[in-house]
């Protein structure tokens, strides 16, 4: 096996065959779209992209480590979890960037708290707005309607904005007012004049925005047909594709694999494989689906989890809350490859956790700056240099 340390030094972003390297993008930056996928529960990064070239991995995971011959081939140091077929396909087309060792200082091992940090993009700060909300505020300070879409039962903190009203819905068919036909006209009446106070004005703006968005989104979903198979748990990504394909003006989309699904403390192997297969299928299908419609160059997807898991398996054939983890960036515009230095599996911190090598805000900054054309420092604070991740 290749020594991990030797290999790490050699890791570099290498464009792969399967897509034209350095393809010229016609789309202007203000056409570009960012889709963020939250894998809640703490996805086990080490069993997602497995460092089969590192003996320390197998020593730490005698029961849970995935044997090299069971992995989906990636390169001579890493392999994909056998469930992550979709990720392998993206990788082979050079459309997947794997950013290793993402985390932050003084990590929290609480789902709530760490997810809060990832949502705000500001660990240990007490901020109450989301990094995507601030991104939208900067990109479009006039807050045009329908700039942020968040598909889910509740609004994520990540999209909480100081100016924008995110379009939040779960089931597009149910997104709207239930009312008898005879009530419609009366219900749709929202006066144009100034409202009684700022709160009332805000509510009117939301109502107007909702009225506009709901009809469009219902229509987009109703009219959307795709031959692409998103798999068993599509993560709401077909809804995103439907919105984008319909020309809906949003530039930031947020979806999640819900209910802390990746919290795999117990008997993890088969469950994790299945969860990954769902997520990977959906992400891959999404990229293909947009590509098929000529929209691929406009859309980049970023997937994250609130933390990784411990290196060593626990007594229940599962893993406990950890720290550094990988992030995935996928899309036709992405230069596939490895980014960031994989953390040393044997150089653990005082709590037996991996030391992160890449602040996760550098990946956020990459999406905000090079991709969407924002100034990341004003959103995330300074010192988070974007990665050179786009062709």
């Amino acid at each position: 096996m290749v020594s991990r340390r030797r290999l790490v030094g050699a890791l570099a972003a290498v464009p792969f065959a399967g897509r034209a390297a350095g393809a010229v993008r016609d789309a202007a930056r203000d056409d570009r779209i960012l889709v963020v996928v939250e894998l809640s529960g703490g996805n086990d990064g080490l069993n997602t992209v497995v460092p089969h070239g590192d003996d320390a991995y197998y020593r730490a995971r005698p029961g849970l480590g995935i044997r090299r011959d069971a992995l989906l081939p990636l390169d001579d140091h890493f392999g994909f979890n056998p469930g992550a077929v979709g990720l392998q396909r993206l990788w082979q087309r050079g459309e997947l960037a794997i950013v290793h060792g993402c985390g932050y200082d003084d990590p929290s091992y609480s789902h709530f708290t760490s997810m809060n940090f990832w949502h705000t993009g500001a660990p240990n700060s007490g901020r109450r707005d989301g990094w995507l909300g601030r991104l939208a505020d900067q990109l479009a300070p006039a807050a045009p309607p329908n700039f942020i879409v968040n598909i889910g039962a509740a609004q994520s903190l990540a999209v909480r904005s100081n100016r924008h009203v995110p379009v939040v819905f779960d089931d597009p068919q149910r997104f709207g007012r239930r009312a008898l036909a005879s009530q419609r006209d009366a219900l749709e009446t929202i006066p144009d004049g100034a409202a009684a106070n700022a709160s009332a004005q805000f509510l009117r703006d939301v109502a107007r925005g909702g009225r506009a968005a709901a009809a469009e989104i219902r229509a987009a979903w109703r009219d959307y047909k795709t031959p692409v198979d998103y798999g068993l748990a599509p993560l709401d990504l077909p809804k995103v594709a439907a919105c984008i394909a319909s020309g809906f003006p949003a530039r930031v989309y947020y979806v999640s694999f819900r209910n802390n699904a990746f919290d795999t403390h117990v008997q993890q192997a088969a469950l994790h494989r299945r969860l990954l297969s769902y997520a990977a299928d959906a992400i891959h299908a999404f990229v293909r689906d947009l590509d098929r419609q000529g929209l691929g160059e406009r859309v980049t997807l970023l997937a994250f989890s609130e933390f990784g898991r411990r290196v060593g398996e626990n007594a229940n054939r599962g893993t406990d809350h950890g720290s550094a983890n990988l992030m995935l960036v996928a899309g036709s515009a992405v230069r596939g490859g490895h980014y960031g230095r994989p953390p040393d599996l044997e150089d653990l911190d005082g709590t037996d956790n991996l030391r992160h090598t890449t602040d996760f805000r550098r990946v956020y900054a990459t999406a905000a700056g090079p991709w969407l054309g924002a100034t990341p420092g004003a959103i995330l604070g300074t010192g988070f240099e974007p990665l050179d991740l786009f062709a």
Partner: protein
Amino acid sequence: MPTCRVLCMFGRTFGCGRRPRVGSLLWVSLVLGGAASVAAAEAGDRAAWLGDLTPIERGAWTASDAAHLLERAGFGATPADVQRLLRLGPKRAVRELSRPRRGASAFVHSGIFDAGLDPFPPSRPATTNAAKRDGRALGIDVKPTGNRPIQPIVNKFFYWLRASRLETDRVAYWWANRMLVSESPLVEKTALFWHGHFAVNEDKVRDYRKLLAQIELFQAAGLGNFRDLLLAVARSPAMLAFLDAGVNVKDAPNENFAREIMELFTLGVGHYGEQDVREAARAFTGWNYDGLRFAFDPELHDQGAKRFLGHEGRFDGEQIIDLILAERQAADFLAAKLYRFFVRDTVAPELARELGRRLYELDYDVGGFLALLLRSKDFYSPASRAVHIKSPVELVVSTYRKLGLGALPGVPDFNVVTGSLGQRLLHPPTVAGWSAGRAWITPSLLFERGNFVQDVLFPDIGFVPPDRYPNYGGANIVAVQDRLRAGESVASATRPAGVAAGGEMAASNAMADQDEAFNTRLGSMRGWQLAIERVLPIPRTTARLDLAGEIRAAGAVDCAAVVNYFERRFLSVALEAQVRRTLSDFLLAQLGTDDVAAALSYAEEPLRLLLHTMLSLPEYQLG
């Protein structure tokens, strides 16, 4: 039956629940604060009241002030409530709203708990491991021989998960009913504040008894001294369980509890250091619970010297709390949070400092501080009126209260409605509680708020009670049951039939079923059966309304008068003439005549359509 008692109590005080007693339109108009021109004149004079904490004089106290007070210190009001309060004047009114009362209905337990359930293991594997090790768990012995010897224990594990969750839903119903009928709604409103402040979630605590005790503490002591309350919360099993106090022991302190006490409960981020967190965590070592009691284990307590917020000593947890509260910042933090909850989202820096000073001088007497706020001219200034976006619980409870209901309807389900709007009681989303104000509103949630009104005024005849039908992985569990009933073997009946989207529970169940000592899918199914057998059902009554009767009693003569009546009764913001016209034209088209009295025999449905339309206006979200 508690519902009956509630109804009777309400009936004596406010008039019958089904047919609210209301006076003539003229009378309502007087009570609710008169014409818009009066309000405007008032507003002009009162602009200077902004930031003024001196009490409003009795002579200046109007019906609209009383309605405002009931909106904020309680959960809205009927015209009769407003009139009663108006007569008291501001000082006595605030006192009445916060007066502790004997005889408030107590929670009626279903009787789902038994001693074998305590302590409840942290997970299903922990349960079955204990069973294998000890031959017994959850008060049940492992079968000596035979198939699936641990199955009854696994059944009981799932039983308690389901039953505690369902019983927690009943606790929420009980509490919301108290909000609805209480003559001291400030007690319940303040309890709701504390529930958001000291957030604990059933999903993690998994014991309705601990959650109930927490709410009862807020009801009993929420208007008392903050130090007492904080200490009681810090020692409450619900909070200790929620913040992992059990793993905070000497030599391995866990910082979760200490951090949240400072970050969320008292000081706010930036007013303490990481060193303070570590030292406070040491001081709280050995704090734990035993069943429903606080338990302190001196063996696990770190008695060494600590350095905390600039002080040094062998502090214990109680002393840490006193050191925190000695900081003016703690008073500033809490005062501003109370102000934002009861008065306005935004608080000017100088007013915030003054509020903190007052609370500090009051030695953290919460009731005294709220009385100061709720009587202040600032509270009655135009900037504080009708700017508060109602939380989902406020919206739902106040809608029922304004409709004059004497008990919470069972259809729609209170917990499902408030949950889908973002505020399910006893299930706050994070340790930081709920975000308030504009965060409640998204485009789809604004629609959902209107859809809730439709569900009240036109009850869904396809309603399925979520406490009777397993809605959590439901279809799969019912299918397992059906296959077993049809005579299939356990192995065959519990085989997963493809995993539904997002159905991680079913997936993990399938994973764990490799152990032949038990079958988790069978356990899940039996758990539901046992829970449904034992947890008392929530009465699925619908709101019985008589809007036509009310309009008759109010004496509204034409469609415009009906719109005017509903506007005054339900909304805190005056509608524009254009909106009023649209609404009365709508009613006119529905009734086929402007002579409302002549149309009353068939007016009920048109009136409900009108009210649904009006309560779907963005303005209805403001209180």
